[in-house]
């Protein structure tokens, strides 16, 4: 199993003359998990986007490495699975078309038809695979996002609001996914749900005074 490490150093983000957060530093290595908590609008989503390489930090740096080999974000991003309320898949394609097209763009080796099938079965969307995503409910779209995130077996999962829009069955599926990830990989979740947050080894509260705390449990 690969050993992954993410080291965040002094990360800060400004937006429109206002500092959203600053002095964020922590370290994650596999197996490991972190919960990012904070009020609405405090910057949880922004921080998770920065970790996933979607947004660049105003100050500070993030170092990624696999098996001790440092990697830039352009290469590392194929080892990240990302789910967020802001993520959208292509409404004009079917579920399975979305997955095939996107994995072809990603061109990472181990995504074949069998894997697509397994993932769709996992989230309970296999029988809706040929339906246009535009017709999906928000809960179904959320489940499809998980397939997209897991398709390339990423050792790092970053989940922003993991259970938004999900019914009980959906939440069970996500809980299962998170537990699987916790076994030997890295999981980062941004959430206000205390129960979800307590399952992680580290907690980071984003607000006026960001601090990293190790919470018991896990």
């Amino acid at each position, binding site marked *: 199993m690969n050993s992954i490490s993410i080291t965040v150093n002094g990360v800060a983000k400004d937006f429109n003359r206002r500092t959203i957060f600053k002095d964020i530093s922590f370290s994650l290595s596999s197996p490991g998990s972190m919960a990012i908590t904070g009020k609405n609008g405090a910057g949880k989503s922004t921080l998770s986007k920065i970790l*996933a*390489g*979607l*947004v*660049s930090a105003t100050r500070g740096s993030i170092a990624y490495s696999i098996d001790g080999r440092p990697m830039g974000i*352009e290469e590392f*991003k194929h080892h*990240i699975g*990302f789910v*967020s309320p*802001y*993520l*959208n*898949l*292509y*409404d*004009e*394609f079917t579920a399975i078309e979305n997955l095939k*097209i*996107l*994995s*072809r*763009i*990603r*061109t990472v080796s181990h995504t074949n038809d069998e894997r697509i099938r397994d993932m769709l079965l996992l989230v309970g969307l296999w029988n809706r695979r040929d339906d246009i995503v535009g017709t999906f409910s928000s809960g179904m779209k959320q489940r499809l996002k998980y397939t*997209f995130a897991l398709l390339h077996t990423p050792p790092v999962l970053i989940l922003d609001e993991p259970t938004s829009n999900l019914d009980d069955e959906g939440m069970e599926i996500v809980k299962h996914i998170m537990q699987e990830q916790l076994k030997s990989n890295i999981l980062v979740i941004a959430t206000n749900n205390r129960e979800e947050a307590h399952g992680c080894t580290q907690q980071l509260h984003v607000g006026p005074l960001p601090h990293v705390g190790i919470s018991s449990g896990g």
Partner: protein
Amino acid sequence: MWGSPPGVKRTVNFITSILAVVSKDVRSELRTRYAMNALLMFVVTSVATILFALRDDDVSTEVLSGMFWVVIFFTAMSGLSRIFISEEERGTTMTLQLVASPSVVYLGKLIFNAGLTLALSSAVTLLYLIAFPAFIIKSMEIFTITIFLGSLGFAAAATIIAAIIAKASTKGTLYPVLSFPILIPLLMTVMKSTARALDGELFTAALGEFQVLVSYLMIMVAGSYLLFDYVWKE
């Protein structure tokens, strides 16, 4: 791949990704048919308007050449920005950012737009040949090379500007405003070259223009490729 050096594999992956981006945009277009219908109607109505304005007037080749590229310019302006605006509107920019590097996205979109512009210019050529009896292409070689290089140059400039305005608020009106100054060298050159083609000049007479078109294309593609990272990534 067994026995294949990592550099080769990376290049192959790079090209596969780019083609996959192009394929996605093509399939999306075929599925929704947004751009094609609108562009076709735009071309037909523009040519018709010019036809009514000029009618039987004796028009010089310079005017014909100019009007030809005016139609192409405005049609391009109404259609080439779609590839980026559609991603922003549907919120799939983030999705693309997760699966592909900026260069892959840029080259894929560029190829799509190049194909679109070539198709566009061909359509306009056809319509002009039908609608204007005075539009006679006497030097076919000059004309085809002009159309080819001109369309590619157009696509090169238009694609990067499209990426820029996709993040702005007043996208539609901003696009021609930003594109026009950048496209002026191209427009002046292709208009001149097309006029030569209509006048039936020798191929060698247009070499100066071809040099300009090629260097414009190279500079625009190289510059856009390097700058795209700054436009695409937040």
